[in-house]
């Protein structure tokens, strides 16, 4: 059965990759909800429509959500994603209309209407999910599974020395999400930084001839410019698509359960995900325990890359 997904995003180049990965790998998008993050929320909402349209998902509703974090000013990352959030590749924006309901309310409505059926994939700051948890405390019981791209457990950050961008952009919302009693996979930099595409994968991507694949390749160029000095070759890592992949096929990875929280007060560390990786006590066993998350232990990177390429028609 197709995995039915609420996709919360801040589209964004790698969000676009994730949508295309999902579309090509059997995801059924019930709705997309959009947050501030990589770009302002109205830009991200328009981009989400544009990418959905590009893969023929013209009937998937897109709901605009939070315009800023809960407890800090808005910060966006156009230097990574381009001014238009899609690498300034000149793609015409979708003319489709946004759905009327606000993101957090729609997450709650959908979860209530289909209890236990929907998978929540969140690849932006967690403001919409945090708001939904505040509106509906029973949300964890109503959602089947949660996969979040966020955090940097035991590795350096990308938005700050210790903070990964999605968590760092709204630490309070992230803490609400980590504390909720649901089965949550936290897909952080500790694993996404291992997804840099090797040269042969990049070459196959470059040779893609499908319209949506061409579109993505063009949008990725600016993003690759950013990652080239970090990785040391002309490639990029696949943060958000990995969250989508693990929502669709959990068996691409193995996991370990860990206790984790978000530093909210640090002068140098606000927005850091702190996971207890010391191994002094046995790993927790109940994923529903508040503050317990699944971290990716091992990943079949080759299979992941292959599925990414196939979704783009390579």
């Amino acid at each position, binding site marked *: 059965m197709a995995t039915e997904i609420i996709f919360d995003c801040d589209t964004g180049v790698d969000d676009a990759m994730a949508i295309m990965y999902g579309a090509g790998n059997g995801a059924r998008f019930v709705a997309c909800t959009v947050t501030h993050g990589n770009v302002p929320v109205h830009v991200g909402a328009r981009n989400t429509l544009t990418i959905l349209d590009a893969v023929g998902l013209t009937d998937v509703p897109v709901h605009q959500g939070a315009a800023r974090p809960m407890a800090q000013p808005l910060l966006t990352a156009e230097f990574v994603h381009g001014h238009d959030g899609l690498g300034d590749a000149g793609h015409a924006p979708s003319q489709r209309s946004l759905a009327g309901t606000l993101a957090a309310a729609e997450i709650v409505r959908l979860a209530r209407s289909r209890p236990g059926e929907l998978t929540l994939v969140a690849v932006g700051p967690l403001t919409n999910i945090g708001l939904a948890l505040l509106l509906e405390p029973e949300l964890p019981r109503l959602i089947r599974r949660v996969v979040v791209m966020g955090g940097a457990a035991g590795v350096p950050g990308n938005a*700050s020395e210790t903070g990964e961008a999605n968590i760092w952009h709204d630490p309070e919302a992230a803490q609400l999400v980590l504390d909720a009693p649901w089965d949550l996979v936290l897909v952080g930099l500790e694993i996404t930084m291992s997804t840099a595409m090797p040269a042969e994968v990049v070459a196959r991507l470059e040779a893609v001839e499908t319209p949506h694949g061409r579109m993505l390749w063009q949008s990725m160029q600016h993003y690759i410019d950013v990652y080239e000095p970090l990785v040391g070759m002309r490639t990029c890592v696949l943060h958000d698509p990995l969250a989508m992949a693990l929502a669709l096929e959990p068996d691409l990875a193995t996991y370990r359960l860990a206790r984790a929280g978000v*530093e909210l007060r*640090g002068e*140098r*560390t*606000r927005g850091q995900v702190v996971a207890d*990786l*010391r191994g002094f006590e046995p790993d927790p066993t109940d994923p529903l325990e508040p503050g317990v998350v699944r971290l990716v232990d091992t990943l079949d990177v080759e299979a992941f890359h292959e599925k990414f390429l196939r979704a783009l028609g390579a």
Partner: protein
Amino acid sequence: MAIPVIIDTDPGIDDALALMLAVASPELDLRAVTTVGGNTGLAHTTENALRLLHLLGRDDVPVAAGADVPLVRRDSAPDPSTHGEDGFGGVRLDPAPRGADPRSAVQVMVDVIEGSAEAVTLIALGPLTNVAVLVAAFPDVAARLERIVLMGGGARVIGNMTPAAEFNIWYDPEAAARVFAAGVPVTMVGLDVTHQALTAPEDWDGLRGGGPVAEAVLAMVEFYTAYYLAVAGTTSTAQHDSLAVAAVVQPGLVTTRSLHVDVECAGALTRGMTVVDVDDVAKAAPNADVALEVDADAFNRLLVSRVTALDARLR
């Protein structure tokens, strides 16, 4: 010529082995030992330093007591499960025929640094309270140091006391922040390397049937190993402090990178964490050489062979 060193320490079992390594190493000229509260309280750490140096035949090295409590932090406490209430895991050494130097730890640091023709290396094996007072109160004297080599913190492997903080930095974060910001060259030997440089109980088999130093080492290692077995499920132990001394004896043992290090002093989950900008995200000027790799085998050989030779030297 031997490198003049001051060792600031909170013995402490791994501190004891580190002091043994220093005394056993002709590359070092141990000018003074200063003590600080940490692994156990100051009264114990000072007495332990005196007794240990007596065991090693070095009653000539001044031992001066420093700070018992951190500069600011009020919720740090010694770590009796790792080192025992007395700091030596219940291993009783003979009393020294002398007491501590009447001068304070920081005054002895100043006197040694000012009295030395060559630049002195300060090896800090405990919380950095004394060192922070030195750099705060005597910046011109501290500036004459060759460098500070400290055991503490972590860049990628960040925590043992808490999930995010290493014990020495956790114990007195404000002091550590002050030391990293002092402008004195700092070499940080943290968990990234000490957790790789493990010794196994059988590494010490050559000490069996040996003299009083061997007997003390074996008994301390036994206590320390029991703790590791209970907590980490392994009998291999990290001789954290010895690696900091070894990094002065044989600098090539560790590979360092010049990075910016700060200390989190306010966080609810991260207080006492070293914030090491491994990927240069913050673009701040480097202020420390951070050890990221270690030749664990070479370290092990150095530590064990030097400590094993001590009894013969004392005979």
